[in-house]
Structures are given as C-alpha cells and as structure tokens.
C-alpha cells in the first residue's frame, strides 16, 4: 500500500546516513526539533536530523486521520488541525519546538495525558527506517487495526533506539467545545476523585490546577460543584521529570513541597516536573527511586547526574539487538 517511489526519494538521505554509520561502525543520535537532544551533553555520535522531513502527506478530516512527516513541528500540526476544528492531543514540551517524531520517540507525558491518554494511543501507523537500514511500515490508516504485531507502539517511546521514525499517521478528534483552567486549594487527589474525567489535574507549590474540557454548561457545573476558581495555566518546570506509579505521586509532590522544590505533578498520570540545583535534583532522584520510579534530567547544565533509564527486561535488549545488531543508535539517556 505504500508508495515506494516517493518514500525512497524522501528517505534516501536517512537510509544513506544509517548505512554509512554501519559501514564506519559509528553511532547516530536522532534530532528532531532539538527540544530534548540540544539540552543534553554533547556526544561523539553523529547527529541525524529529521529537520528536512516536514509537512503533511495526507489529511482526511472526514476520517479523523492525518499523516505527517516526522520533522513537522507539533505547533504547526495543531494550527492546521484547528482550522478543521480537530486536534491530536500530543502535547509539545514547553517552549522548545517539539516535532511530531520527537514527541513519539520520547513519549513524554503532558498534563492532558490524564484524560487524552498516552501518545502511543494516538498513533495509527509509523514508517520507520530501522537501524539496519530497512524502511518498514507498521499499522494502517484505519482507526482500528490488529493486522500483525503492534510495532507502532513499539516505536513510540523507543528513544530512537530502533531506528528513525520518518512518517506518522495519527488519530484525531474534535476540539472540545469548551476548555478552561481552574485552581483549587484542595489536594489534587481529592479534586481528581470529585470530578468526572477532568482533562488535567496538576499539583504545584501554588495549589492544585485543573483543566476541564467539556460542553460549556458542564464546565461551569463541574467547576461550581467542586468549588474551582478560574485561573491561568500552571507554570511547568523544565529541568527534570520524575515518573512514579500514579498512586504514589502525592508522596513525591508533598516531599517536593516540603523541600521547597518547584514542581508540577500530573495527578492520575504519575509524572512530576521539577526545577532545582544539582543537590535538589539528586535528592529528587533518590526520592523517586524510593517510590519505585525514575528521574530523567533534561538539562545538562543543571546537574552532573547521569540520566538513568530504569532497568529493562532482557527481552528489551533482545528486541533492540534484533533491529540494531551493530548498536549504531545512541540512546541519549545513557550515562556517559
């Protein structure tokens, strides 16, 4: 079903770069908009950029489906979809020029993950240039597809370790008819329990922030029922992110509150964004680990801590080895 000619033309430079790296036994690091990679320590790995790989391949508003090249900025995609009253709730990282491919590759959560679900749940099809230089497609353009193994989800959150995500087909939905941010003095867990499927509940040093996305009358009614006040969106820290079991997030946010560390915990999701000096981040990492979670520092200047991906199942290593036998794809999360 793929248009082999177009694809070869588009992806030839990527295939060539991968083949050259294989021949030279070099290592590659994939860069989309740079929102993650540019903030990490430099490596000797060669940068493989998806910056040229932009634009919409196919938009079918009537099917709630769009196909874009991976280097397309998330904001550009959102603006285009908004003209059709549609959205794909993949959230950009604050202020850093995220690309669609980068957001898929890292699969980092935003506050709206609470209601909208994970990035992986919006991906219908992926074209991947594997680390052994094969151009492969997984998934299809229909909203349901169980034909073969779900390699779309495998690619999502793979941090570039399996290959280059080149093109993505995404599921869309109508933009909610009304949406607004509110604030509350009550703990996030209680607010979350009292609301029916809020879009986001964020626990910060300044209180609990809530986003509702509903019919306008329902937004007003829910806010009144729980005693929410209108507010601007919360400020989100950008230095590091802790991931814990959502059931243990409150333990992390109250610890950060007591320690005076700026934080934004996504209730019901289990991610807490943090700012702080190296000592504070080291303490946060230790606290996250005690809670069975992990800490990802996304700013090389902020800490000497190595970024530590959590330990992985041996199956993960086997899958990586199957698609990248020469280990040319550099995992930017590795300590170095």
């Amino acid at each position, binding site marked *: 079903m*793929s248009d082999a000619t177009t694809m070869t033309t588009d992806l030839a430079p990527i295939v060539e770069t991968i083949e050259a790296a294989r021949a030279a036994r070099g290592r590659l690091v994939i860069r989309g908009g740079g929102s993650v990679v540019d903030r990490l320590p430099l490596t000797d790995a060669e940068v493989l950029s998806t910056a040229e790989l932009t634009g919409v391949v196919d938009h079918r508003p*009537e*099917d709630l*489906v769009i196909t874009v090249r991976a280097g397309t900025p998330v904001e550009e995609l959102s603006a285009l979809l908004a003209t059709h009253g549609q959205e794909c709730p993949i959230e950009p990282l604050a202020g850093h020029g995220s690309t669609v491919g980068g957001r898929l590759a890292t*699969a*980092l959560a935003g506050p709206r993950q609470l209601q909208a*679900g994970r990035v992986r*749940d919006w991906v219908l099809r992926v074209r991947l240039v*594997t680390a052994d230089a*094969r*151009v*492969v*497609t*997984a998934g*299809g*353009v*229909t*909203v*349901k*597809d*169980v*034909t*073969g*193994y*779900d*390699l779309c*989800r*495998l690619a*999502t*959150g*793979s941090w570039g370790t*399996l290959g280059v995500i080149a093109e993505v087909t995404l599921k869309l*939905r*109508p933009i909610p*008819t009304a949406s607004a941010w509110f604030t509350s003095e009550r703990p996030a867990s209680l607010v979350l329990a009292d609301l*029916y*499927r809020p879009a986001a509940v964020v626990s910060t040093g300044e209180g609990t922030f809530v986003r509702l996305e*509903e*019919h306008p*009358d*329902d937004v007003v*009614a829910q806010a009144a029922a729980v005693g929410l006040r209108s507010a601007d969106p919360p400020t989100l820290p950008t230095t590091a*992110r802790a*991931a814990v*079991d*959502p059931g243990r997030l409150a333990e992390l946010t109250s610890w950060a509150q007591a320690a005076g560390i700026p934080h934004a915990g996504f209730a019901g*999701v*289990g991610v807490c964004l943090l700012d702080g000096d190296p000592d504070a981040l080291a303490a946060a990492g230790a606290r996250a680990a005690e809670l069975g*979670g992990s800490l*990802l520092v996304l700013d090389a200047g902020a800490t000497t801590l190595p970024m530590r991906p*959590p330990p*992985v*199942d041996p*199956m*993960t290593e*086997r*899958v*990586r080895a*199957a*698609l990248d036998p020469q280990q040319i794809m550099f995992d930017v999360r590795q300590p170095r």
Partner: protein
Amino acid sequence: MDPATATGTRRNVPPTAAESALLSDLHGVLGDDGLKTSVLSRATYRRDASFLNADPLAIALPRTREELAAVLRACRDHGVPYTPRAAGTGLAGGATPTGVAGVRPLVISVARMDRLLELDVANRRAHVEPGLVNARLGRAAAAEGLRFAPDPASQIAATLGGNVATNAGGIHVLTYGVMSQHVLAVELMDTDGEVHLLDGRLPEQAGLDLRGVSVGGEGTLGIVIGAWLRLLPAPPAVGTLLAGFDTLEAAAATVGALVTSDRLPDAVELMDARAIALVEDYAQAGYPTDAAAVLLLEYEGLSAGVSAGVDTAERLATEHGATEVVRAADADQRARIWKGRKAVAGAIAKTAPDFFLQDVVVPRSRLGEMLDAVVAISEREDLVILTVVHAGDGNLPPFVLFDRREEGVLDRVFAAGHDIVTTALALDGTLTGEHGVGIEKRDFLSQIYTADDLAVQQAVRRAIEPSGLANPDKVLPTTVGCLEASMVPEGAWV
C-alpha cells in the same frame, strides 16, 4: 477440504516417543484433573469460535502460575509446540491447535486461572488473571462506580487474557480505544516459565513498549498470565438513540456527518435489513422492521454534553432522511435497544448452522462503498450476508450464513470472504480490526505489508519468543517469504 473428513483423521494416531514423554511429565504436574487426552476432550478443544479446527495432542489446564511454568518447561524440554487459549471465543483460529510439520501442539488453557487479584479503586485499576471473564470484571467494577471500557460482543464468555492476546475491540472503541489503551501492564510467561512484567506502572521512561507488542500477540509471544487494567469512572449520564433509514447509503452518510460533528458519539453501530429482521424475530428489540438500516448511537459523560450530543445526532439523522428516531427514555429502553445488537450471534445460531465472519476495516468515509460491495458480493455468490458494523470505526464484520452440508457452499463462502477482504484493501482498509490474524488472515498479510515489514515483525517475534514453540503457525507464516509453504494440518479443514 471435505467437511466430512473434519472429524479428524489423527484421532487414533499413537503419540510419538517425545509426545509420550511430555504427557508423562505433564501428568506428574497436573494429575488427571488438569490433563485431558481423551478423544472427547480433544474434540472439544479442536477449535475456537471460528470453524478452523485441528486435533491437539492433549489439553493442559493449570490452576497456578507454578503449574503453568512447569507445563511450559516440559514443552520446551520435549520440543513440543503449545497453543494458549481460554474461553475459545476467538474468531480467527488463533486458538486452533495447528502445529508445525505434523507435530500436534499441546493446548494450554488458562481458563482456571480466573481470579480478580486486586481491584484498586483509589487508583482505578484492576489486576487480573487471564481466565477472568470480561463481564465479571465489569460487574466488580460497576459495584465500585467504575467501568472497564472494552466490551466485545462475546464479553459474557470471553476472558481478559484472550482480550489482551487479541487486542479486542467492542462497541465503545470510537472514543475509548481498543484493548491496548486499557492495559497498563502485562505479565507474560515465556517458554522457560519465566515471568516478564512488561511496561510496569510508570507513565513514561519505562523502556520499550513490549506491553504494546504483547497485546495482540495472539499467544505467539508467550502466555499472558496477568494484566493490570485501567478502569474509568462510570459516566454520570448516558444517551441512546435508535434511528431507522430507508437506504444503507443514508445511514452511512449519517455516520460520516456524526464523525465530523463537534462531539464524537461513544458508540455507533449499524445493522442492515437482514440483521434487523433476524434479531427482531429472536430478541424483539423494537427495531423498525421495514427499515433498510438502523443506527444505534450512544453518548456518555456529563449531562449537558450528552444531551447536546443526542440532539445533534437526532438532527443529523433527520437531515439525512431518517424515517424513525427513538431516544431511549430510561435505562430499560436503552437496554432493549442494545439487546438487539447483542443478540446478533444468538439469532444467527438459531437461523443457520454455520457462519463465517470477516473483520475488515475501511476508512469511515469509504463505508458506503464497502456496504454496497458487500451487497453485490452477497448477490453474486448467492449467500445470505448480514451486515453489522462498528460504523464509527469503519469496522465491519459481515456475517456470511451457510449450512456446511450444502454441496459446494464452502467454495462460495470463501470466494465471498476473499472478495470482501480484497475490496476493503482496495478502499485503503485493512484485514482485521479486532479479531486478530490467527490462521485465517495470516496469508493475506503480504498484501498489506512488504517483505521487509514482515521480516521486521518476524525479528521482533523471535527476539521476544526465541523458542518458536508458542503458537507457531499463527499471525505470521512460520517462514516469512514462503507463504506457500504454510501448512494446513492433517485433519483440519479451512
């Protein structure tokens, strides 16, 4: 290929030395109660809810993880393949015990591992064993004001392990998503009896999403022995609408308008005149029997949004020429409207001894073309084909009804099935939306994927399940690129 031979030519074949050794080991682990080898037992486990069937070596029914691990290690030690199953409601032959190269597989049923291990109300999740029936989890969740969204038509019998293994769908996929979206973590047991917790409970940074690959793995990657499932709060308001139309086209056009309206319905089902007549006769759901098609629509959530959604649906249906629109006034009327949809399989069983079910998906805007094509195929092959569609998803399982005793009917059934699939593919659609590949659609995969695509799928499969003993003949051909070499085992007919 003659159905008359389907009773199985291998029943009296004595076990090989390796098979006897395995059975002896298994008996030591499971005893008489947990190991079935009789002709009758083997006949019971020949097939799932598809009509693909084959003779298994025996059936193992472990009750615990320890027993299951011992069973798997015995398979490994004796080099005997295994086919996992539970309730056997699958529709693609995924649980049909085909082996490789004439080796009969052991059926491993996880139906007795059926506990709800934990219902974590505060964090809205459940830890389940694979044999737990979908509807039982639904009832336990409902008692706490929660719901489990995936609701395949077979949910009163289908197990959650099977739902995970096939990445099952259901009526509410349009807004809630398929099974994978509701699986937080999978515990997968490999052929060495080792348990792998895939994905765990972290929201990000959790390594490769092997959970996502194992969901829909159809038993080829190991055995799902547990899962953490996501529960949602029960919706405070529900609105249900039944609309009748004079033509299939008008119903399909209404679906198109609904999908691009400002609020997606949570369920959109379409049934054609034949399906209506059949279920009305069987279940008296109150559908208009003179309609060419009905749409069943549901909106869930907060009250204003639900009311607005139902208003919009009523307006769009009327604008597209609906001849009758009924809004469910209460829970009883709502249940009655859905009763007809849920009675389809029962109504069919009462009407025809056999049915063959496709599961193609097309982009929603091509639904009208696909429905027209199914009508044409039905006329050409002189077969009764019922159309019952998850219309909001573009997923149509046309039920081809037949009686296998009718001479030559199978050829026409397969011709119809083949034409339905090729039509869907030509409309940019795909083979299967929720039933899985199993054996039935395996050899169509090369029409969708390139040799490289399939080679990568195979590489991932081998990396996760290196032994090659887990449900070996399913999903992908055993040797990718040699599709013609895939075998129909002796004693099976397809």
